[in-house]
Structure formats: structure tokens, C-alpha cells
């Protein structure tokens, strides 16, 4: 199953919110949709779910328009909330009924999920008596109760304590293993890196970066080498004095030295020289930017 959006645009009044957004996501994988507040993530998600149509462009699943009777969506919105004064089981059953589920299977599915998220004791309680984190877990049950084919999780980890975060992490991994198509939006880059192979960075309604995270990282300058040892200062001084022939730049950072090679092929020379000089090297790797760095780089301009 491949979900594709092709050059979708959307205007709200005078404001152009989406400018030719394209994306492609396959089942059994998670794609991270990243962007600052107001970049157009929620609008993109709503168009994918057909809450409203795009002004132009198309959304297709395996080349065909999405048949909502066949394909089920599970959605955890960023802005969360259900009926505070209603019993949890009642509102979950209502949402299940809206999704076209029969009552029996809905109860079964809800009970399984409540059990999975350690929430069974709250089944007949009113939502308002639950803590924020527990309300969020109920919201997650609401998103997953119809056994969706496409799962959209918008900031699923916000407000969860570490124990609940692990619970959710396992659940998301399970979804991916079950061959669901997962769209994941978050500002917590560590979670994005953990689940997503592909990312899409939106800025001001445009896709500014998309692709495989590993490949994106590899595309950065690979002449930068991170070295750290027992004495980073000695390593830096030695590099400045004795390796000017292979290095173009030396920088001392918090806990490592960042060396820039003149040529990529000189990596082995560097290793050899460091060991010849008797430095105690504990860490030696090609510098790769973190997802956070990449995100900031692509989104700090504009908006």
C-alpha cells in the first residue's frame, strides 16, 4: 500500500497554506512529517484524510482515490480532547460506531487496547477524572480502535511520562511491524529518528527536505571527522601543528575535536598519524548532523 500526495495546494482566503506538497509513504514504514508551528502539517494531514479537499493536486492510495469504506484511518490529533463528562467506554463506543464498527467487535477491540495500555480500571470512569497522560492514552485507544490501515500520530509523546512513553514506543513499533502505514509528526527528533526511515520537512507550506534519513545524513560533507580521546587538547594541538598537509580545519568542541580533511581519501592517513603519535583515541567517526541540526538548518529561515 502506497499513499501518495501529488502537488497538493490549499488556500484559506488570501493565505496560501500549502504550496505544491508532494509525499509518498508505504505500509510497514513510518514517515515523519516535520515542521515548525504553522508550517502546514495539520492542513496536510487533514487533506490526506479528506476532511476537506485540496485546491489542486491529488491524494491517491495505490494510484486510486482513497475509499474510506475500505481503508480505515486512525488519527491522534495534536489538539486533544474528547467528552470530559462522559464515561470513557461510552465515548469510545460512539467513535467506533461513527467508524462503522459493530458494537461487539468495538467492545472487544476497546478492551484489548485498554488492557494493552494498562487502562482497564478506567473503563467506566468519566474522562475528566483522568490525568493528562492517561487522557492521552484514551485518545490513543480512540485512534486505534478501528484497527486502522493508516495511522496518523501527531505529537503522540507530548505529556507522557517515561514509562508511558516506552509503552507507546512499543505500540508504534508493533504497528509498523503489522504493516500499517504510519505518519508521524513530532518536534521530539529522537522519536522521529527512532521510528521513521523517511522524513518530510515542511516550511511555510513548502516541502524543503524529503527523503531517507540515513541518505540525507550521508549527503552532508563527509570530510568532517569527530575525534575524542583522553586528552582532546593534545590531539587538537598536534593536529594543528603536525597534520596541516591533510587537514583544512581543526576545531575543539565540547567533548570532541572536529577535524576537516582536505580529501575524503585521507581518512586512513589521519588514523595512522594519530596512532603513530601515540594519542589515546577513544572515538573516531565521520561527522553526521543530528536530525535536530538538519531541522533547524532547513526551517530557521522564513515563517
Amino acid at each position, binding site marked *: 500500500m502506497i499513499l501518495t500526495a501529488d502537488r497538493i495546494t490549499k488556500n484559506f482566503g488570501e493565505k496560501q497554506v500549502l504550496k505544491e506538497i508532494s509525499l509518498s509513504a508505504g505500509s510497514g514504514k513510518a514517515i515523519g512529517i516535520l515542521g515548525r508551528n504553522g508550517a502546514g502539517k495539520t492542513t496536510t494531514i*487533514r487533506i490526506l484524510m479528506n*476532511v476537506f479537499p485540496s485546491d489542486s493536486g491529488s491524494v491517491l492510495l495505490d494510484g486510486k482515490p482513497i475509499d474510506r469504506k475500505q481503508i480505515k484511518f486512525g488519527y491522534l*490529533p495534536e*489538539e*486533544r*480532547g*474528547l467528552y470530559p463528562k462522559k464515561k470513557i467506554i461510552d465515548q469510545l463506543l460512539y467513535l467506533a460506531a*461513527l*467508524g462503522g464498527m459493530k458494537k461487539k467487535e468495538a467492545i472487544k477491540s476497546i478492551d484489548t487496547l485498554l488492557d494493552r495500555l494498562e487502562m482497564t480500571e478506567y473503563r467506566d470512569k468519566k474522562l475528566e477524572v483522568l490525568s493528562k497522560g492517561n487522557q492521552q492514552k484514551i485518545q490513543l485507544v480512540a485512534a486505534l480502535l478501528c484497527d486502522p490501515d493508516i495511522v496518523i500520530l501527531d505529537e503522540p509523546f507530548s505529556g507522557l511520562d517515561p514509562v508511558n512513553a516506552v509503552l507507546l514506543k512499543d505500540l508504534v513499533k508493533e504497528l509498523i511491524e503489522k504493516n500499517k502505514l504510519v505518519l508521524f509528526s513530532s518536534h521530539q527528533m529522537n522519536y522521529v529518528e527512532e521510528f521513521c526511515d523517511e522524513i518530510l520537512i515542511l516550511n511555510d507550506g513548502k516541502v524543503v527536505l524529503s527523503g531517507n534519513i540515513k541518505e540525507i545524513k550521508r549527503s552532508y560533507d563527509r570530510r568532517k571527522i569527530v575525534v575524542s580521546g583522553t586528552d582532546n587538547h593534545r590531539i587538537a594541538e598536534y593536529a594543528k601543528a603536525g597534520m596541516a598537509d591533510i587537514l583544512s580545519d581543526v576545531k575543539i568542541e565540547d567533548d570532541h575535536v572536529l577535524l576537516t580533511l582536505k580529501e575524503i581519501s585521507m581518512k586512513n592517513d589521519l588514523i595512522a598519524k594519530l596512532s603513530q603519535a601515540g594519542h589515546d583515541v577513544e572515538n573516531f567517526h565521520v561527522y553526521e548532523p543530528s536530525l535536530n541540526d538538519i531541522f533547524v538548518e532547513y526551517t530557521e529561515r522564513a515563517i
Partner: protein
Amino acid sequence: MKQFFSVLKFEYFNYTKTKPFIILTTAMILLIGAVLFYPRVFKQSDDGNPVGEGEKSVIALMDLSAKDPTKTAAYFNAAGTSFEFSSVEKSIDELKEDIKNGVYLSGVVIDSDLKYRYFVNDVAMNDQASYVIDQLMINKYRQQKLEEIGASSSDIQQILYDMPQKEVIQTGKNQMVSFLYTYVLIFALYMAILLYGQFVATGVAAEKSSRAMELLITSAKPTNLMFGKVIGSGLAGLTQMGLILGSGFVFYSLNKPLWGGNMFIESIFGMPFEILLYALLFFILGFFVYAFMYGALGSLANRTEDVNGLVMPVTFLFIIAFMFTMFSMGSGDVDSIGMKILSYVPFTSPMAMFARISMSHVSPFEIMLSVGILLASTIGIGYIAAGIYKVGVLIYGKAPKLKEIIKVIKTANK
């Protein structure tokens, strides 16, 4: 369709299972029950306390014109009125004192055949006793005179007690009677539409402000959500009205004999069945017109606190329609030019036309025209409201301008 019914069911029970609904409905039923069972309870307590009744209803009688005053008392008592006449021989001052102290309800001093003094402590608004005494005096006088000219006692009975037999053949409507039930029904219409219409607005706004809408809008069609909510709320309103009016009718039929002759109660519960059907028709159509507007406005609110301000113009319109209809009914002229115009305007016709049908003569063509306009407007307003709702529920912050809404409706309903 299945989705629509899911929303409908959820919304219906959302209203009817709440404490305020149950408490209010029960309280209304109890109140109506208390009023309608009043004569039964009242009568029973009287029967259980005959001493009190005896003391209260005794009227002292002093016939100064007769040789044997006890005969007069016997004659009065034989007429079988609700009073007991007791012949006394006292001075006027003593009599006054006794009445003051409550020994007698009142006192009658007969000076001559057609002249009497009536002593009473407080003159009640409709003092039945003095009316009864008038009648007894006249009868006694006439009987005496007839006896003097030698009429037989059977003739006398006939002359005195034969009553004209009357049969009322009504060619128009009795506005005195129709006014009461029209008033009750218009008031019920007003309360139900205002209450349940505003419930729709606050319900939509609450779903939006709690962000439940975020999930609802992705799992259900907005038209299903809105129509389900409006119809669910309308049915809840009908349920409440039905329970209250229905229990009223049941209570009345249980106590009907005890209410004999009470025009107020009789007119309300004697309302023609077709008027009840018209009330139902105008409630349904009027409710939809307003509930759709309320739903659309509710979708523009960010918080439930914003709702009141947003729905104010609509509520105002409705109150004006209600006041105008009520004033016209009060003035007795429900067929004024103003009422005629308002009975075709969709926002006012549910009440104006209903009042005219109920209290005056409206040709079937006029009714059909009014209902037709109302029905078409309901559909049109529903269509526009669904468009506004679709957009409104997703917009937070400033409410969109009318121009933007129109634009969106055009594109959304393509």
C-alpha cells in the same frame, strides 16, 4: 446513513440521560400533577373534616317578617344549597359579634318579603352565599305569591324551577376558549425551540472547545454530525414536551369529573386534536429553522462562553416573533396585517401562523403556502448551515467574515 443514526442516538441520549433533563421533566410533571390532582386531594380533606365544614358554612337567619322564622330556615335548607341556615333570635349586635368571632359564616336578617340585610365579616371576591340567598328570597317570594293566587303546588314547582334548555351552535371560534390553549402551546413552542436550539449551539461549541471535534470531523461526515445533532436535540425536546403534555392529559382524564365547570382547565385539555397536530408540525419546522442557525453559529465559537454573544441576534429575532404573536393574541386580533405578513416569514411563521390557525380562520391554501415557505426555508437554511458548520468547526481564533463563509460554502458544496 448508519453514521447519521449513530450521531442521532448519541446526541438524543446525551440530552435525555442528563440529570437536568430528568429533574426538570420530573418537576414539571409533578407540578402539573399537583395542580390537576388538587380538587381530589382538597375534597378528600374536606370529607375527613366535617366539623370544620359545618362550622364554616352555617349562616345565621333571622326572619323578622315571619311569624315562625324556623319555617323560613327549613325552606332555605330544603333547597339543598351548600349552606346550612340556622334560625336564631338575637339582637343585631350579638349577631354581629358572633359573625366577627366566626361562629357563623354570615348573617341574614329578613325585614320584609324582598328586603334583607346581609351581615358578613369579609366580602369575598365572589361571595356565593349572597347570590344563593338572593335566589332563595326570590323563590320564596314567588312561591308565596303564586300560592296566594291559588296555583297548585306542582304548577308552582314547574314555574319556579323550569329552566330554558340551551344548545350552543358555534359558527366561529370561541376565542375565549382557544386563547388559553393557544397560549399554552405557543409558550411551550417558544420554550422548547429556544431551549433546545441553544443546546445545539452550546453542544457544537463544546465539542469544538474540548477538541473532540478534531477526532469527530475525521471519523464522520460534517453533515451527519450536524443533522444528527440537530435532530437528536429536537427529538429530546419533543420527548420532554410529550412527557409533560402527555402526563397533563392523563392526570386530567383521571380527575376530569372533579374539574367540572372550570373553564380554564377545560379549555386547555379540550383543545382540538388537529390543533395539537399543527403545534407538532410548527414545532418541528420552526425548531429546524432555528436549530440550524444555532448550530452554524455554535460552530463559529471557540469556547462555549462565546456562544451567547454569537447567537444573540437569532435569539432576539425569535423573541420578537414570540412577543408580537403574544401581543396580537392578547389584543384579540390575530388577523392584523402585521400577523398576516409574519405568518409567511419563515422565522416568525411557526408562531404567527400557528396562533392564527388556532384562534381564527385561515384557509387551507394559506396554511399550505406558509408551511411550504417554511419547509423550503428550512431546507435552504439547513444547506447553508451545513456549509458554515463544515468550515466553522475547523477554524479557531477569530470568527470568519461572512464573505469568507459564503465563498467557502460555494466551494465546499460543489
